[in-house]
C-alpha cells in the first residue's frame, strides 16, 4: 500500500496519531500528484482540518476545512462545518462563524440547536436583531436552557424597554447557575444583568440588593459599584451613593479612566451642598480629565498611521503590566495612557486583540513542534498566520479610531457638564459663606462641626475609611461618606 494515500492515513487518524498524519494529509490535500482524485483531496482536506484542530492548531485547521466544505459530499461537509463551528467558538472569530453558518443547511443532520443559535449570533453580528431574536426563540424551543439565547433575548427586551419580560429571561439564566460559586463568570454576569434590569425598571432597592451580590474579587465588581452608585443616587440615598463612588476613586482603581463617576460625585455633592468636597472634586477633574479633550483633538488631527496605532496599543499593554506590578508607566504617545487603556476594553477591539494573541500563541506552538521542520507546512502555516494577524490588526485600527471618537464625544459632554458644575460650585460656596457669616455660634455647633474636630476628619474630610496603609481588595467597598446635607434654606 502506498504510504501517501488516504487509506494509509486512516489507521493514524483512528489511533489519534495526528502528528504523523498531518504531513501525509497535507501532501494529499495540497500536492500536485495526478494520481489523487478530487474526492480524495477533499477528504484529505477535511481530515487535515480535524487533525490540526485536535493538535490545537485552530487557526490553521480552519483553512483546509473551509476548502473541503461544498466540494465534498454532504456527510463530509457536515463534519467540516461542525468542526469549523467548534473552532469559531475557540477563536471567537465572527467572520469564520459567518462563513460556517452560511454553509449550514437545515435539512442536514446537524443539531437544530446549533443551527438556530449560530444563525442568531451571525444575525446579531450583522445588527439584524429581529432575525436574531426569532432564531434564539427557536433555539430555546429545542433547548430551554440555552444560555446565549436566554441572555440575548433578555437583552433584546431591555432594548425594547420591557424590563419585566427581560427579567424573566435573565432569571431563568441565573437559575442555571444556582449551584455554582458567585465567582463563576456566567453566574456573575447573569446577576449583573438582573441588577441592570431592575435598575431599568426603576426598582432601585431591588437593583441595589442585586448589585450587592457581586463579590469584590469579581471581574466586573468595579463596574457594578458605579452602577450601584447610580441606583443609590436615583433612590435619593446620597450618602450611600457617595460612599460607593469613593470606592471608585480609591488608589486601588487609580489606573482607570473614569470621568463619569467623578462627574456623578460632583453632582451629588452639589445636591447636598458640600462645597469643600465639591471643590476638591472640581480640582481633581480639572487636572485629570479636562485637558484630555485638547490632547485627543490634537491626536485626531495628526492622522496616525496604522502602524502608529498598533505600536501605541503594544505600548499600552506593556505599560499596563508595569503599573499592575507597581512600577511607573513610561507611556509616550499622543494619547493619555489611561484613556487608551479604556479604549482597549472595547468589545470589538478586545475580541480582535484576543484573536491576535491566540494566533501568536499558536504560531509559537507550531515553531516548537516537529511539523515546523517540514518546509511546505512551514510556508502554509506562516502564510495563514501572517494574513490573519494583518486582517485582525486592520480591524483593530478601524475599531480603535471609532472608539476614540465615541469616547471623545462623551468627554466633550462631560467637560461641558463640568463647566456648569464648576460655575455652580462657586455659587454654592459664596452662598454658604454669606449665610455662615449670619449664623449664631450655637447654630454652627452642628454634627458636622463635631466631625471636623475628630482626627479622621482632619486627614480625610468626610470620607471614612476604617483601614490604614495600602488599599487591598478585601477592603474596597468599605468607604463611608459621613458628611451631612449642608444645604440651607435661602
Amino acid at each position, binding site marked *: 500500500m502506498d504510504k501517501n494515500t488516504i487509506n494509509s492515513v486512516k489507521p493514524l487518524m483512528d489511533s489519534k496519531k495526528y502528528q504523523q498524519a498531518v504531513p501525509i494529509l497535507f501532501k494529499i490535500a495540497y500536492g500536485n500528484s495526478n494520481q489523487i482524485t478530487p474526492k480524495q483531496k477533499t477528504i484529505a482536506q477535511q481530515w487535515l482540518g480535524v487533525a490540526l484542530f485536535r493538535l490545537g492548531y485552530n487557526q490553521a485547521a480552519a483553512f483546509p476545512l473551509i476548502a473541503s466544505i461544498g466540494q465534498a459530499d454532504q456527510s463530509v461537509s457536515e463534519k467540516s462545518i461542525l468542526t469549523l463551528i467548534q473552532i469559531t*467558538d475557540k477563536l471567537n472569530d465572527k467572520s469564520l462563524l459567518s462563513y460556517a453558518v452560511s454553509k449550514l443547511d437545515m435539512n442536514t443532520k446537524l443539531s437544530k440547536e446549533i443551527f438556530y443559535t449560530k444563525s442568531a449570533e451571525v444575525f446579531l453580528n450583522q445588527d439584524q436583531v429581529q432575525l436574531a431574536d426569532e432564531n434564539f426563540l427557536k433555539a430555546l424551543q429545542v433547548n430551554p436552557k440555552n444560555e446565549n439565547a436566554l441572555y440575548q433575548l433578555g437583552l433584546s427586551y431591555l432594548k425594547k424597554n420591557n424590563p419585566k419580560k427581560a427579567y424573566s429571561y435573565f432569571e431563568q439564566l441565573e437559575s442555571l447557575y444556582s449551584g455554582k460559586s458567585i465567582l463563576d*463568570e456566567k453566574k456573575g454576569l447573569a446577576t449583573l444583568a438582573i441588577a441592570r434590569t431592575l435598575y431599568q425598571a426603576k426598582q432601585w432597592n431591588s437593583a441595589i440588593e442585586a448589585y450587592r451580590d457581586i463579590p469584590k474579587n469579581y471581574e466586573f465588581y468595579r463596574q457594578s459599584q458605579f452602577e450601584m452608585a*447610580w441606583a443609590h443616587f436615583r433612590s435619593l440615598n446620597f450618602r450611600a451613593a457617595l460612599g460607593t463612588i469613593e470606592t471608585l476613586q480609591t488608589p486601588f482603581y487609580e489606573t482607570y479612566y473614569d470621568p463619569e463617576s467623578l462627574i456623578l460625585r460632583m453632582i451629588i455633592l452639589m445636591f447636598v451642598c458640600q462645597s469643600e468636597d465639591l471643590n476638591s472634586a472640581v480640582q481633581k477633574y480639572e487636572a485629570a480629565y479636562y485637558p484630555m479633550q485638547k490632547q485627543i483633538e490634537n491626536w485626531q488631527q495628526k492622522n496616525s498611521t496604522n502602524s502608529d496605532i498598533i505600536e501605541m496599543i503594544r505600548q499600552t499593554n506593556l505599560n499596563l503590566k508595569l503599573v499592575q506590578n507597581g512600577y511607573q508607566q513610561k507611556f509616550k504617545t499622543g494619547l493619555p495612557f489611561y484613556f487608551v487603556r479604556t479604549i482597549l476594553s472595547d468589545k470589538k477591539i478586545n475580541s480582535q486583540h484576543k484573536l491576535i494573541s491566540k494566533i501568536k500563541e499558536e504560531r509559537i506552538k507550531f515553531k516548537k513542534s516537529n511539523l515546523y521542520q517540514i518546509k511546505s507546512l512551514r510556508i502554509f502555516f506562516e502564510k495563514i498566520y501572517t494574513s490573519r494577524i494583518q486582517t485582525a490588526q486592520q480591524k483593530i485600527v478601524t475599531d480603535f479610531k471609532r472608539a476614540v471618537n465615541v469616547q471623545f464625544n462623551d468627554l466633550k459632554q462631560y467637560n461641558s457638564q463640568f463647566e456648569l458644575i464648576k460655575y455652580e460650585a462657586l455659587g454654592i460656596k459664596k452662598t454658604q459663606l454669606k449665610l455662615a457669616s449670619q449664623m449664631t455660634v450655637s447654630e454652627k455647633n452642628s454634627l458636622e462641626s463635631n466631625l471636623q474636630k475628630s482626627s479622621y476628619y482632619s486627614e480625610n474630610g468626610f470620607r471614612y475609611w476604617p483601614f490604614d496603609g495600602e488599599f487591598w481588595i478585601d477592603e474596597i467597598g468599605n468607604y463611608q461618606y459621613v458628611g451631612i446635607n449642608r444645604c440651607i434654606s435661602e
Partner: protein
Amino acid sequence: MNKYFVSLTIVFFTSAALSQDSDIVRVPKKRRITLNFGADMVKANAENPDLSNIHASKNFNWKKMIKIKENFIPEVESNGQAFEK
C-alpha cells in the same frame, strides 16, 4: 424656592415614585450575616431621605448638568460574549 426644587427633583427622579408600581418581583436572598450584640438591646429605626430635607438653589441648570442614566444596555450588550460558548 423649596417647592421649585422639589418639583425639579420629582422630574429627575420620577422613577423613585414609579418604582413601587413595577411588576418585577425579586425574591430577596437570605444573606449569611450574623450580627451579635451580646446582651445589649439595640433599638434602631431605618431612616430614608426625605425630599423635604433637600434644598438647593433654584438657579441650577439641572437638565444640562445631569445626564441621567436610564439604563445600562451597552454594558449588558458588551458582556454577552461570555454566553456564546
